[in-house]
């Protein structure tokens, strides 16, 4: 029965990683250079979850399978005055849609809450079981 709590914790970790990734996307929504300073727009990151605990797929739970890069093309915006603009005056901005990120963030935080609720209920069940002997 105590295993339920570890499983819940794996869910919390996964959803938090998801939320972190979304926050990273939102933070970099206007990033047009990479870490080396080269002109390359930031690519949207997304989390792929897989069943089974991290490091031990036999145990029930969830883990972050990978953090993938969205292959969709960058969004060009016409900004001729921008030093990052190409010959036609377009600047390539990251392929991030704010509304999608917001919706994903909402989903992740709701899933996080559901996991917390589940853990609370499991805890109360364990407690009442312990009352049997105490």
């Amino acid at each position: 029965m105590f295993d339920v709590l570890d499983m819940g914790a794996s869910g919390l970790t996964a959803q938090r990683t998801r939320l972190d990734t979304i926050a990273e996307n939102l933070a970099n929504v206007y990033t047009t250079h990479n870490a080396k300073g080269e002109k390359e727009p930031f690519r949207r990151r997304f989390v792929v979850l897989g069943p089974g605990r991290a490091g031990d797929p036999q145990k029930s739970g969830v883990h972050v399978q990978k953090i993938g890069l969205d292959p969709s093309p960058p969004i060009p915006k016409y900004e001729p005055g921008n030093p990052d603009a190409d010959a036609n005056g377009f600047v390539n901005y990251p392929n991030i849609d704010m509304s999608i990120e917001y919706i994903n963030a909402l989903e992740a935080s709701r899933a996080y809450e559901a996991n917390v609720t589940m853990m609370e209920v499991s805890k109360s069940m364990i407690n009442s079981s312990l009352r049997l002997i105490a």
Partner: protein
Amino acid sequence: MFERLLNQTNAPVLERMLKFTAARQKLLAENVVNVSTPGYRQKDLSLEKFQGMLRERVEQRDHNGLGSTSFDDLEAQLENPQRGMLFHDGANRSMEQLMTDQAKNALMHNFVIELLRKQFQTMEMALKDRPV
């Protein structure tokens, strides 16, 4: 003596029920944990089927006399219920259904615990020959 004493009451039935609610809670938690996992199919134990199995055993026990039937081998079968919406990622999920089920399951668990406690209290009272 205690084996016989315990076997003559509802204690074995309640014990099996507790095992069931604990196992079901684990599966429901697993479903909630995997709510964003692509291709994940929900797992559950059917309360109705398990109660049917229990009822059969209880009737069998009533028929054959108290203490004659063992409840220890009763196990609920793992199921993949086809409920909730099937999403594009191949997962079927229904958060509302899951949360309702876990609430009902927890209530059932606590109710069974309470019944079992009362039964133990009665036994203790009988042993001590005075109210506890």
